[in-house]
């Protein structure tokens, strides 16, 4: 009997009111791991009521005590590190090292949250007028929720939950129904902390529960990470319902490779950026623009390295690239490669129709490199979210910057060069939220805000870092006179 996951509401594991379920499948072995309930608006309402009930007690819990819970949480995460990584591999398909890296990144966000007592402090000014003092107070704002994606099922929830609750808010997590087991384990560990009931709540499900979270009047703010079309819907729905919202969308991240770059080091780095996590990350390198002679130099080297990438089951330590998330994702990715080819791109390395011995039905797509890609081709404009790297040519640095800035997305962009002036120009001119210089994956650490520009982000305050403190708190100005 396959198990049906439960929701966690008000400090209890409870069955969903919904009868529909969504199968959670290991994308390599095709084994059904569990079923996620497709939770309803009724479930969400229960979670919001529990979070509202928990809020008053929790906000008056001293901030140092709230932070102490995160010290204990970190210890539990470290103790279960390998279990957490293994679950990520099983339900997401990525390689075990990538899963370990994800858990590490998640723990960094817990480390950050431990510093909330320092970051929540505010300022004040004496004698703004005769005998009048003015002070800023930063207070928790209420019930927050996060709707999180399949590609980082452990890390992304931890971008939000720890900081939100140490700021004194209560929280509802609604993870992807494709990867809900990581969140279940996170909540099993949170349960060991003996937090007051209602401080953290977990709702498993898909669209109905997401919709209910966005529309519920008891939810103060929503964080979202996913594709751009959905990010826009989340932003519009949440703002229509009077909520603060940070909605992180998709990407088409460009990398400019200059002829003066250290080609060997650059190619190795671009390999990880393009094919790490099977290209399923919002910071994945999708297009490499070779400037001048760099195009031919990087093309041959990239193909040489990429064809030796060991694709396999993520739990095998030797695997360098695992599966994509599902059969339908594999079909979509392969179809986009086909479209690119039909539009004139040259398939330099073809990852379609790849089978892995022992996992013949797994959702594997091998590293794919497309050459001679032009700006109007679908493989240059649209997010593929798979292990596909498009190569484009530019005659000059300026032309490369123009190509990058034409993209409707603006999550990240990188340059590989040994020329400091060009690196500066790149930082200055490129319209993207995260810039890499000789770094293929420009991933901010937990103490820096993370978010894109243009259609890669809807909202104003980004996730993580100082922005997260702003997002999760209300500021109140107190003006006092005592005579």
């Amino acid at each position: 009997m396959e198990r049906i996951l439960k929701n966690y509401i008000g400090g209890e594991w409870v069955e969903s009111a919904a009868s529909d379920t969504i199968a959670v499948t290991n994308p390599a072995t095709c084994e059904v791991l569990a079923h996620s309930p497709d939770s309803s608006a009724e479930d969400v309402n229960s979670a919001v009521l529990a979070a509202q009930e928990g809020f008053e007690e929790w906000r008056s819990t001293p901030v140092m005590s709230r932070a102490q819970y995160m010290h204990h949480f970190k210890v539990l995460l470290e103790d279960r590190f390998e279990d957490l990584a293994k679950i990520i591999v099983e339900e997401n398909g990525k390689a075990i090292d990538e899963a370990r890296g994800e858990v590490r990144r998640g723990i960094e966000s817990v480390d950050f949250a431990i510093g909330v007592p320092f970051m929540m402090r505010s300022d004040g000014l004496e004698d703004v007028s005769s005998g009048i003092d003015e002070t800023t107070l930063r207070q928790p704002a209420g019930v927050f929720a996060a709707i999180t994606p399949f590609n980082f099922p452990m890390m992304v929830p931890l971008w939000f939950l720890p900081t939100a609750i140490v700021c004194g808010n209560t929280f509802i997590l609604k993870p992807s129904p494709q990867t809900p087991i990581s969140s279940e384990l996170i909540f099993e560990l949170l349960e060991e902390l003996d937090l007051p009931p209602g401080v953290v709540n977990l709702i498993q499900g898909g669209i109905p529960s997401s919709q209910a979270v966005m529309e519920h009047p008891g939810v103060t703010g929503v964080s979202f990470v996913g594709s751009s079309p959905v990010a826009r819907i989340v932003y519009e729905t949440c703002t229509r319902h009077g909520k603060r919202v940070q909605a992180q969308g998709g990407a088409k991240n460009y990398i400019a490779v200059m002829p003066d770059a250290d080609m060997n080091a650059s190619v190795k780095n671009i390999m990880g950026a393009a094919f790490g996590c099977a290209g399923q990350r919002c910071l994945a390198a999708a297009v490499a623009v070779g400037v001048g002679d760099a195009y031919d130099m990087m093309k041959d080297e990239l193909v040489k390295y990429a064809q030796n990438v060991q694709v396999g089951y993520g739990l095998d330590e030797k695997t360098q690239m695992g599966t994509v998330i599902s059969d339908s994702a594999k079909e979509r990715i392969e179809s986009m490669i086909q479209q690119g080819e039909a539009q004139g791109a040259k398939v330099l390395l073809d990852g379609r129709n790849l089978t892995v011995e022992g996992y013949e039905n797994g959702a594997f797509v091998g590293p794919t490199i497309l050459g001679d890609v032009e700006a109007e081709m679908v493989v240059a404009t649209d997010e593929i979210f798979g292990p596909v790297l498009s190569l484009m040519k530019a005659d000059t640095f300026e032309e490369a910057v123009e190509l990058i800035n034409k993209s409707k997305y603006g999550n990240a962009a990188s340059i590989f060069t040994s020329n400091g002036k060009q690196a500066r120009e790149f930082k200055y001119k490129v319209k993207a939220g995260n810039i890499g210089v000789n770094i293929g994956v420009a991933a901010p650490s937990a103490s820096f805000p993370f978010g894109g520009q243009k259609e890669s982000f809807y909202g104003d305050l980004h996730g993580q870092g100082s922005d997260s403190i702003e997002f999760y708190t209300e500021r109140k100005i107190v003006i006092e006179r005592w005579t």
Partner: protein
Amino acid sequence: MTSLNTFGAVLSYAIQLEADLASYYQKAGNAERAKEADKRKSKLERVRRENVLEITLEPIEGLSEADYALDFEDTSSAGQQKIEGVAAQFYADAAPKINVLQAQRALERYGKEHTALSDA
């Protein structure tokens, strides 16, 4: 035998090596060395846990398990020296291939410890 082509594969191999050495020295009746190997194993587990970040995961080339064959049956003094020499060689080869400084330092340190034991 397969190549040690990822950060995790190298660190996991080192962790298993130290676990095997701990058992080996127990069998050989050398509790002190068994304890040292066990301590290195725990430290390597922490190194793997704390230093694996997706931005640093670049492919590793030129390391193969086949080059570090160990004979755990020979518990003689000469056998122990030989095993320590192979372990030292593994760490010496692996350290420069790891692009994470803290992990590289740990591997270098354990390489030196095994070299000292092989010379003892």
